[in-house]
């Protein structure tokens, strides 16, 4: 269905971007994205997914809002102690009233995932789940120097093939903002079919400098199994 006048006005600037247009925006409107993991990239990513017009956003985060956890633009002092997912739902609804935002509930059927794990192990577990469900996903890793966004289209080399541990420095809110926005953009491009080749890629941001590389399947990785057969590399 074509965009409404209200949607055209809302997304006017985005509709002018190369690779975007009405068809791409309609794809975004029809997408159902689960965002999960509880990491620092989550709040910025929620903001950008909502602002971009992803039609349905489900937030999956069991933790509570804690002091000093960044995301002050989304979560204020009044949110301390609240379930973070509920606070982010409220925040995202205020960002864009044209999209549906809710808590993720078992049985919900997303069409894509944005993984914002607080640790690499958490991200790995969620990304593996997305791979087995054959859902396109992007993983945001935040570290002390910035972080990385890994795009995994269906059938592509998996997150575990692509990930490289950072230097071990504690993740920062600034890194979370950068990587959260970047990961959300990568997922928007995947959903809209507007991403550049290589679509399976990892963008590492080190102290503000991005480095893009295509991901490659590691020998013996489970992602080379039947789930990947016949699908795009």
């Amino acid at each position, binding site marked *: 269905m074509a965009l409404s006048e209200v949607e*055209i006005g809302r997304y*006017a600037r985005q*509709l002018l*971007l190369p690779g975007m247009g*009405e*068809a*791409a925006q309609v794809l975004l409107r029809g997408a159902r994205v689960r965002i999960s993991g509880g990491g620092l990239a989550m709040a910025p990513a929620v903001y950008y997914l909502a602002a971009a017009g992803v039609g349905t956003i489900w937030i999956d985060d069991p933790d509570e809002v804690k002091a000093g956890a960044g995301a002050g633009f989304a979560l204020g002092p009044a949110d301390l102690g609240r379930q973070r997912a509920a606070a982010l739902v409220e925040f995202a609804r205020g960002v864009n009233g044209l999209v549906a935002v809710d808590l993720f509930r078992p049985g919900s059927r997303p069409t894509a995932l944005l993984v914002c794990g607080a640790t690499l192990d958490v991200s790995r577990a969620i990304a593996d789940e997305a791979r087995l469900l054959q859902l396109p996903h992007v993983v945001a890793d935040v570290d002390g120097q910035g972080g990385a966004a890994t795009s995994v289209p269906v059938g592509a080399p998996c997150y575990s093939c692509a990930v490289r541990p950072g230097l071990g420095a504690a993740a920062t809110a600034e890194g979370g903002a950068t990587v959260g926005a970047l990961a959300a953009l990568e997922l928007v491009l995947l959903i809209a079919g507007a991403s*550049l080749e290589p679509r399976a890629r990892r963008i590492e941001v080190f102290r503000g400098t991005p480095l893009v590389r295509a991901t490659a399947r590691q020998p013996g990785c489970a992602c080379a199994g039947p789930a990947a057969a016949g699908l795009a590399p």
Partner: protein
Amino acid sequence: MNPIVPVARLDIRSHACPVTWVKARIALSRIAEGEVLEVLLQDGEPRENVPRSAEEDGHRVLRLEPAPEEGAGTWRAWLLRGASPEDRAWP
């Protein structure tokens, strides 16, 4: 010479930048390559920017002329749709 026959008409006189070009771009994406869109636009910024943006996006401006019969300050542009701008990759 065969007359040019637009297959669609768009009135963007009540809109401001960037919605003027956004609406024209969407209307162009809804017609086929080689077809013509007629656009009614206001003099000034829309008359300058919409045709220029159309050419930058790979379309052709076949005609750009005053259309006083449509109202004071109205211009008419006929845009020939080129290849789909949505096929373009990021720079």
